[in-house]
């Protein structure tokens, strides 16, 4: 995509950002990102009052462990894929289902700019919700004294979450421009296939995003390649595909 094509993408970005923030999916995003914060608060209050001690395999669970577990399980295995599926599949598919895509297709901008602008709006929106949520959970769960020591870990986890949002979002944007009802397939992929493949022996786990998020050393490059390839394929698909809207 050349320079002049980025300007229309920026205009679509503005339009899409407003729709995402005030659209029907905003509530879902707020609930999904807000839940771990509430959970962390409850745990924190429980620890502070001394009314409960968490013992796992004979070991007392500290707040540091709670944070790392929250990030790796709640965020990377649930929230990030859920937002990726929910938003990624809807970026174009919702406009097609609502038949509002017509208004964008009859403007002097390439269809690829529509995909790019909407994807960037999703990235900004999702990161603006998920990363502060994770940071707040960190602030709640980790004692002030340990924060400095664990700050590097926090930044790494935030980086993983951002990478996950980018990769899942790109994959499901491609699904959204390619299939009529991509949401169900997307949910099966992240909560069926990915969960299953990760526990299977052999190379099947390499066909998941979650695997590369767990192995950040090499995973970063693979996931960035996935993002570029999926968005490129989405642009190609929307430029060449006919969308027949039912009357």
């Amino acid at each position, binding site marked *: 995509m050349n320079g002049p094509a980025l*300007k*229309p993408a920026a*205009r*679509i970005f*503005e*339009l899409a950002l*407003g*729709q995402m923030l*005030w*659209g029907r999916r905003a509530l879902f995003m707020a609930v999904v990102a807000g839940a771990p914060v509430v959970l962390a608060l409850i745990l924190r209050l429980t620890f502070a009052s001394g009314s409960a001690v968490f013992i796992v395999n004979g070991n007392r669970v500290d707040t540091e462990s709670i944070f790392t577990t929250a990030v790796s399980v709640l965020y990377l295995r649930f929230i990030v894929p859920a937002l990726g599926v929910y938003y990624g599949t809807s970026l174009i598919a919702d406009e097609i289902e*609502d*038949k*509002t895509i*017509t*208004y*964008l*297709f*009859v*403007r*002097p*901008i*390439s*269809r690829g700019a529509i995909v790019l602008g909407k994807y960037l709006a999703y990235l900004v929106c999702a990161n603006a919700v998920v990363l502060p949520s994770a940071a707040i959970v960190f602030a709640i769960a980790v004692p002030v004294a340990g924060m400095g020591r664990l700050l590097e870990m926090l930044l790494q986890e935030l980086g993983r979450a951002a990478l996950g949002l980018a990769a899942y979002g790109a994959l499901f944007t491609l699904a959204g421009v390619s299939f009529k009802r991509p949401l169900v397939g997307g949910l099966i992929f992240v909560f069926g296939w990915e969960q299953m493949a990760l526990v299977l022996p052999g190379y099947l786990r390499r066909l998941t995003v979650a695997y590369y998020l767990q192995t950040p050393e090499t995973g970063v490059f693979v996931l960035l390649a996935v993002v570029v390839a999926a968005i490129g394929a989405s642009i190609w698909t929307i*430029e060449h595909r*006919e*969308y*027949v*809207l039912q*009357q």
Partner: protein
Amino acid sequence: MIVTTEHLSKWYGHVSGLNDVSVTVGEGVTGLLGPNGAGKSTFMKIVTGQLRPSTGTLRVFGEPIWGHPEQYQRLGFCPEQDAFYEQMTALAWIAAMARLHGMDQDTADAAARRALATVDMLDVAERKIGSYSKGMRQRVKLAQAIVHDPQLLVLDEPLNGMDPIMRRRTIRLIRDWGREGRSVIVSSHILHEIESMTSTVLLIHNGRVVAEGDIHQIRGLIDAHPHQVSIRAQDPQAVARHLLGGDEVTSVRFEEGVVVVETAKPDAFYTRLTRLAASGEAGPIEEIASPDDTLQAVFSYLVKS
């Protein structure tokens, strides 16, 4: 010529949407007339580059349009579907559409206000689209089509759901656009509507253009068939009482909040209905619609002959 097609066909799988259509459209208003499912929307979607022809060629301003988005700088489209970004205000939405034509924010705002003023919607421009009546939504759709002052306007059933007064205003607006030298392609399944905008028509049936040219040639045929008009009003009984007095009304019946009138003189009837709506004597008239039975009968006759 603004639009030229040669042996244009469109297939949806095994179903034919458009079949061997060769037409030219120049400046002024051209009516695309045909029953529902005749192929009008398919033709318009191909002309506006949303669909690709299966066979044949299409030229808009002498160039292909599929995959040539720069063409939309000179083309405005008002789709049939009642689809909107419901949470946005009309002003914000139309300004956002204008921005996609390369305008900066101030220019886009000014263009949006101009377009909304043209369709008499400026006073409610800052209300959310979701709160609009069907007729207001139709006008907002028209506004987004003209916001960039296009040379070619393609309007798919633009009068659907409008009240009689707004219908009359919109018809005048479309006529004016044609007189200004724009090319306007407007579809309808109601002959009376098309006739009040233009005398140049393309008659389309089962995906084929069955006739093109002057509308008066089929006028006699249409008059031979009774014409039905469905009127949604707050007080359908009052509307019926007022209309029954005229000799142009053949019969009246009621169906779930609407009064359905049959007339053999549609011109006289519509004139009277518009007067009645303007006077308010029978209360507010919310929507008028015409089933396409009449047109279907005329087309069946044309195809057989």
